[in-house]
């Protein structure tokens, strides 16, 4: 597996038609900022033979057609781009505001998260809706955004038994992460509320609500449950 270690990142192969640029092995906004910047640079360059660019927490995967480009050519360009990739200023954009109906049938695990945190449901809502979250990456199903970082006081772990059906629009917590289920799927996150917004709708001109690097803030639409 060819590797380049001349910088604080490395470039590894994943089979014969993908390369991965890996930054520091951690989930941090600064590292993810470089990931997003690099992915945007590659997208903008429209390099011949590149089929897909996938930013994740700390790495960017580049899928290519080996008949149109090769690892050596690609990694040379990626090495330069990765060295140049700097996170965009954090306050570049207003956060995307997402209405959430917390608790009750919309958020069946709010009570459990409150118990975990040793506080009232209203306090959990306040803490969940306070931060501006960063979208680190999308994955799992179309339009599912992994966001962080959840206040450690309410960072309840996943449910021990995942639900077979989580309704679309459900807003969940899994440790330091929060996210919105874009479609009805099985899922183990603690469901604290639900949003009427659709993170993914293939019939819309823009099917996706969120992308890696976006800022998001939730706000409660119903009075906090008692």
């Amino acid at each position, binding site marked *: *597996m060819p590797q380049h270690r001349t910088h604080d990142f490395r470039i*590894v*192969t*994943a*089979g*014969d*038609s*993908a390369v*991965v640029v*890996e930054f520091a*092995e*951690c*989930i941090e906004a600064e590292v993810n900022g470089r990931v997003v910047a690099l*992915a945007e640079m590659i997208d903008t360059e429209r390099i011949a033979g590149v*089929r*897909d*660019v*996938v*930013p*994740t*927490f*700390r*790495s960017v*995967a580049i*899928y290519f057609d*080996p*008949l149109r480009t*090769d*690892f050596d050519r690609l990694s040379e360009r990626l090495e330069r781009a990765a060295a140049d990739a700097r996170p965009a200023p954090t306050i570049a954009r207003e956060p995307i505001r997402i209405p959430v109906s917390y608790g009750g049938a919309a958020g069946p695990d709010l009570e459990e998260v409150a118990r975990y945190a040793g506080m009232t449901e209203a306090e959990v809502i306040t803490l969940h809706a306070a931060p501006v979250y960063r979208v680190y*990456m*999308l*994955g*799992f*199903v*179309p*339009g*599912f955004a*992994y966001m962080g970082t959840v206040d450690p006081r309410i960072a309840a772990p996943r449910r021990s038994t995942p639900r077979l059906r989580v309704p679309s629009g459900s807003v969940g917590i899994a440790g330091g992460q929060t996210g919105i289920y874009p*479609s009805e799927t099985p899922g183990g996150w603690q469901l604290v509320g639900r949003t009427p917004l659709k993170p*993914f709708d*293939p019939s819309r001109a823009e*099917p*996706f609500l969120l*992308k*890696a690097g976006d800022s998001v803030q939730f706000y409660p639409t119903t009075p906090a449950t008692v």
Partner: protein
Amino acid sequence: MAFVHIVKPGLQTTIQDEGRWGLQSRGVPVAGPMDPSSYRVANALVRNDRNQATFEITLIGPEVEFEDERLVAVAGAEFALSLDGVDVPPNAAFVAGAGSRLRFGARVRGSRAYLAIAGGLAVTPVMGSRATHLVSRLGGLEGRALTAGDRLPLGDMNRAQTGRRNPRPVSGAHLIGVTGPHAHVRLLPGPQRDYFSSDALDVLQSAPYSISKDSDRMGFRLEGPLLRHVRGADIISDATPLGVLQVPASGQPVLLMADRQTTGGYPKVATVITADIGIAGQLGPGDTISFSMCTPRDAFAALIAQERALTALEAAAAS
């Protein structure tokens, strides 16, 4: 507009094209054919473009009826095929008349066949592709496997398809990687080779793995020699390429296939080379697969050889 009718659906018949590329950053799986070579052969034989939508047929084939006369071909897994009761050959094009019925009979070998029809299946593309992704219910016809009574619109035929009705006597059989119940594929190490014990690649090559019954278009759960993690069985989630072997804590690898999720949190020990993906795609539950390591040079040489043969077939079928 002409249609093809599903009389009997078979076990799992879906619509596939080359896949929904470019949206993995938004969590959208690629989908596409499990055996890309056979898919491409089927399209070549009927003089379609290489990205036109075909049926992917799984283990038990369908019965379909054509509304108008079309050049058609079935490539990949071998089935007894009959058109209005008369045997027709696999891996070669034939003319199906208006109102004729093509019936898939007994499966001889392989798991997935591709039925290409001149003009292609003209269902409405979803985000640039007609490929069906079953789990997220995207693409194809309503994102699902076909059922009896479905009608699929066919695209307009090009001049090569309308001008000369009779197909060239060309066979794609030499390009079909259907090996029967056991297949051998080549691997490149990584991307997380360093998460495993130093003998992991030897272990992987030491004996065949069997494909468990919990295997589908997303991936094959393999049962065989255990792989040992040395840095834990969790990584910070990252991208999951086609053909990668991810290994959860159980030590039994999962081979990720066409409908895989875009990202995953298990370390990945090695990746099937692009040229051999179709060979793996012809396997089903109960079949076995063995692995050998190769070099990037071998992988590229195999891909070039395959591409030359496919291009030659496309030229011969179109001439």
